[in-house]
């Protein structure tokens, strides 16, 4: 393999990895606060892309405004989902909430099929994102520069909110012990709603960036990215926001490099992603940056 070729693969890997990271951050945040695997995250991601799409198509908003509105609207959808499907189950066993999440996921997918039709749609790409730069034989699409930047900004903003603001303090308190937080005067429901709003907003950003990178949206577009982001989140240690970031990049790198170095095994790409996950988990049972599970006797 020549060096420029390797660099091209590396560029592809960073582009894919930062997308995974972006989606995984939202995934892991909801988990960190609620201990809930939000299987609907991938479908909220899809809704975000569709809202942006229709914002441009139907009300012909300028693209940047459409994207902003999509992020806000999707946050609102996230609050609605929490209100309808998760909040009533707050005191129920964890698994009930998980099944509820799967139910929400099925609902969003099929709702999208009925309302938006199952046929794929072309996502609008502003020219700003579609310029191709050729640097020493390495082709890079301009959107590829934006994705990691946005991922890092999201990471920083999230860290700021969680560690430097009052609602963030409430989130940490709820994450630590929901009942005690309630006793101490934290409005638990509002804090969780905020968590969902943030998580869904991040999913929408992920959906829009995904649409800019791979300009095809369809109702099932969130399934595979959602699963991959889940893998990335677990890989990094679920609940850890920087961990999700690392997990996303590791996953992207692993997938691309398998194809790069062993093209004949390209069909095993997904299996390889899971294999890496399992090996990491066997070495570090709570992921790369995961906290050790407390053992209560």
């Amino acid at each position, binding site marked *: 393999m020549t060096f420029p070729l390797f660099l091209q693969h590396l560029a592809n890997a960073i582009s894919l990895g930062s997308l995974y990271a972006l989606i995984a951050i939202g995934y892991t945040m909801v988990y960190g606060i609620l201990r809930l695997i939000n299987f609907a995250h991938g479908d909220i991601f899809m809704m975000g892309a569709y809202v942006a799409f229709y914002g441009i198509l139907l009300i012909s908003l300028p693209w940047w405004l459409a994207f902003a509105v999509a992020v806000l609207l999707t946050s609102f959808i996230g609050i609605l989902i929490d209100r309808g499907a998760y909040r009533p189950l707050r005191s129920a066993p964890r698994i009930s909430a998980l099944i*509820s999440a799967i139910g929400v996921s099925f609902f969003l997918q*099929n709702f999208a099929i009925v309302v938006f039709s199952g046929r794929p749609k072309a996502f609008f790409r502003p020219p700003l994102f579609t310029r191709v730069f050729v640097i020493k034989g390495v082709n890079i699409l301009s959107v590829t520069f934006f994705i990691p930047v946005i991922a890092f900004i999201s990471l920083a903003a999230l860290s700021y909110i969680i560690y430097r603001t009052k609602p963030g303090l409430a989130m940490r308190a709820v994450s630590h012990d929901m009942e005690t937080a309630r006793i101490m005067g934290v409005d638990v429901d509002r804090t969780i709603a905020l968590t969902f709003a943030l998580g869904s907003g991040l999913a929408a950003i992920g959906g829009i960036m995904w649409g800019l990178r791979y300009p095809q949206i369809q109702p099932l577009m969130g399934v595979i990215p959602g699963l991959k982001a889940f893998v990335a989140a677990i890989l990094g240690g679920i609940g850890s926001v920087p961990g999700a970031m690392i997990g996303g990049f590791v996953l992207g790198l692993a997938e691309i490099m398998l194809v790069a170095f062993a093209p004949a095994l390209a069909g095993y790409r*997904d299996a390889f992603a*899971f294999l890496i996950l399992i090996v990491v*988990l066997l070495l570090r049972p709570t992921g790369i940056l995961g906290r050790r599970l407390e053992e209560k006797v």
Partner: protein
Amino acid sequence: METMSSYADSTRAMRLKRLFTIASLIALGLSLVWANHRLDPYMVRILNLCAINIILATSLNLIFGFAGQFSLGHAGFMAVGAYACALLTMTPAQKEATFIISPLIRPLATIQLPFLPAILIGGILAAIFGFIIGAPTLRLRGDYLAIASLGFAEIIRVVGNNAIPITNGALGLKGIPEYTNLYWSWGAAAITIFIIKRLVDSSYGRAMMAVRENEIAAEVMGVSLFYHKVLAFVIGSFFAGVGGALLANLVTTIDPKTFIFILTFNILIIVVIGGLASITGSCLAAIGYTILLEALRPLEAPMTIGPVHIPGVPGLRMVIFSLVLLAVILFYRQGLMGKREFGWGWLVRRMVRKT
């Protein structure tokens, strides 16, 4: 404390219970004969699927509900059982006609076995896979175990797509003999329930539940965590393999896509809706789930209610289905049955008291 008279009562009660059980089994047998002769193939197909879902749900319930191990690998074990059984029951000529890209590897291409040994081999192979996968991963906890087992199931599926000389890849297998009928499927379901119920009530089952409730406490009491987790996992995957085998010989054509992780989600939904650690619940939910999916089909057909004509809306069925699912889980947080089982206790108690 029991007195002598209640001692006699309980002996009688036990006899009565056994009588009821035998009677209900006979009723089951008779209704199967009736169904086989009187119902049309569509109904029979749905009933077969009900039984297969019962097998899959009770086996996942053993792993998750009783032993407390959150495994999402069921679709993978089903795939192993289904492919093994299908390859063993297909005729050599059918195999040759199906493997159009590259021929099936040698010993498999000529072997043909009757259904029963093929099912058993499918189940045993799935159990072996269960052991290979379970042994390293079962020390993971909770959600980490879930994703690791889901990962293994996906790996099995991806290998199924790529190992074309064994699985025929994405083209799948076709022309699998249609051996599965009501007797096979419901018979297998009955045996599954029997074995899992016996296991759960045995000291092994108690140990599994102890592991579920508190691993450290169980270990202190001398329960081997590894042994009991793996035992539940291996037996659960055996029955998943059997369920897969029955499914393969019911649909008569399978491909790796059949065993995508969504399938595991569906079984998980059945288990949770029925009630974790309730075999009765798993049975009821499996039947309800299977029939509901079919019963909602008319929703998509064009309807005429009085003067209003509503054109069919494709996809509406799944929207309603997911809403029903959400409603059930919101109102029955512990599942339909909780941890309860259906038994003859209430009936027997009443009868004993009367006399």
